[in-house]
């Protein structure tokens, strides 16, 4: 069993998987308290438009994916703030437009042969050293940012108007959080696909908050849960020759419903 740890692509998958797991589970706290569970789905699907445009134009798909994701994130925030539209509505509008553009670009691309399966589920076993470097740099940046401004961001999530009246630049924190989530989402989509990226940013805090009520405990347990699940997903998928992304999502799901059951039993008693 442990001999798989000596295989280079498994090593990369483990390191990359843990890096993504920690990053997305930290962000999942904010996704849950802001009720932004749809934002990651929106941004990750919007990324598809950028990737497809890159394929069509013959330029780096991932670079255009980044541009689409960040633009979508900022637009979601802008439309929600200026147009009095709930974030979920603006997400739904933007991601469907971007997905539609993606399909049009791919249809127009001559001799396009790739399928969308890798976009949906990715393949954690294909993580490269370069991916790990990029993920490490972005993760460090995110943790420093959150370390310095955590209380202010949490206060903005609690009540943006109240936070503003204490002199906090709420717009800065709002858009910074959206951009960080957008970049993390693109990185995750590239490595683990849309479905797993969504699961990894929604389910950790959603699961932990069934057991714990305080944000510190939710944060710590979310990180631990994610690391364990990603490792379990890699091992199980390798051992039984199953798709790694789908296997990991399934384990996340099982744990969420277990936590929900535990909560119900505790409430009942």
């Amino acid at each position, binding site marked *: 069993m442990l001999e798989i740890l000596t295989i280079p692509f498994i090593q990369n998958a483990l390191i990359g998987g843990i890096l993504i797991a920690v990053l997305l589970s930290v962000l999942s706290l904010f996704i849950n308290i802001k009720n932004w569970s749809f934002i990651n789905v929106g941004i990750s699907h919007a990324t598809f438009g950028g990737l497809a445009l890159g394929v069509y134009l013959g330029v780096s798909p991932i670079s255009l994916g980044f541009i689409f994701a960040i633009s979508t994130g900022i637009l979601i925030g802008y439309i929600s703030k200026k147009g009095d539209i709930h974030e979920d509505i603006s997400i739904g509008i933007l991601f469907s437009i971007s997905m539609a553009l993606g399909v049009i670009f791919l249809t127009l691309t001559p001799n396009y042969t790739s399928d969308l399966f890798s976009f949906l589920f990715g393949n954690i076993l294909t993580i490269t050293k370069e991916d790990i470097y990029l993920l490490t740099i972005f993760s460090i940046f995110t943790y420093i940012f959150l370390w310095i401004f955590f209380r202010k961001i949490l206060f903005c999530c609690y009540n943006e108007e109240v936070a503003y009246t*204490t002199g906090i630049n709420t717009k800065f924190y709002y858009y910074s959080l959206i951009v960080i989530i957008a970049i993390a989402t693109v990185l995750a989509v590239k490595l683990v696909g849309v479905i797993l990226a969504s699961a990894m940013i929604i389910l950790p805090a959603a699961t932990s908050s069934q057991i714990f009520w305080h944000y510190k405990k939710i944060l710590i347990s979310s990180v631990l849960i994610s690391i364990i699940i990603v490792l379990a997903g890699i091992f199980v998928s390798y051992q039984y020759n199953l798709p790694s992304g789908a296997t990991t999502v399934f384990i996340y799901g099982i744990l969420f419903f277990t936590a929900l059951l535990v909560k119900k039993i505790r409430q009942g008693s």
Partner: protein
Amino acid sequence: MKTALEVKNLTVKLSGKVILEDINFSVKKGETLAIVGPNGGGKTTLLKTILGFIIPFKGEIKLLERPPKEAIKTGKVGYLPQKNNIPKRFPVSVLDVVLFGLVNSKLSKKEQIERALKYLDYVGMLDFKDHPFSDLSGGQQQRVSIARVLVAEPEIIFLDEPSTGIDVVAQESFYEFLKNLKETKGITVVMVTHDVGVVAKFVDKIAGLNRFLHFYGHPKEFFKKDILEKLYGSEIELVVHSEECVACEHFRFKIGDKRC
């Protein structure tokens, strides 16, 4: 006495519709003002314009002798929104909520906690410091939110419908608490409320608002039929509560047409 808030020739339009027109008043430091009026009369819009959330179409606002956006940055302004503006099941403790009020403070972590505990004690919520904020009743949440506002030691505080979700008995003690706050700390209080009867005996001034400022002055002068008709419409029926009225003993103004 210095002026804490000055509103001059203020007109506010939202989506092209005039919500507030030619509003003029000023509040001196240490005064308590209740902004009252019918629903849709522009009370909350006025509060949000004073705080800088809404840009006026015309006119000028001076908050602590500065434009609102500059005044906000001084950290001397406190704001308590309506209860329902706080997300459900927000994962913080009572102490965390009070500490939000010190998020820009230069105090050490230990000093911040000491001060937060002091204000939790002040509002009678010290025993709940480690409880989930979302598990508290409406009245308890309001007390904690007041502690969050006060912990920054502001010069002026704005309260939007502060008695929402609080029963009548708790409302009395809440307004009593606000009155005490003004007397002991000299804080200027501006509140939007619909509880004109309850609030009248606790404030220095009332602003009667329905697009225009129909009344601005002492509460006793407010309870006149012509003023109330202008503010609430001609269908208003005044009910006067006697000194002996047990059911509504909070209301003691002997004016109007009926007795309870």
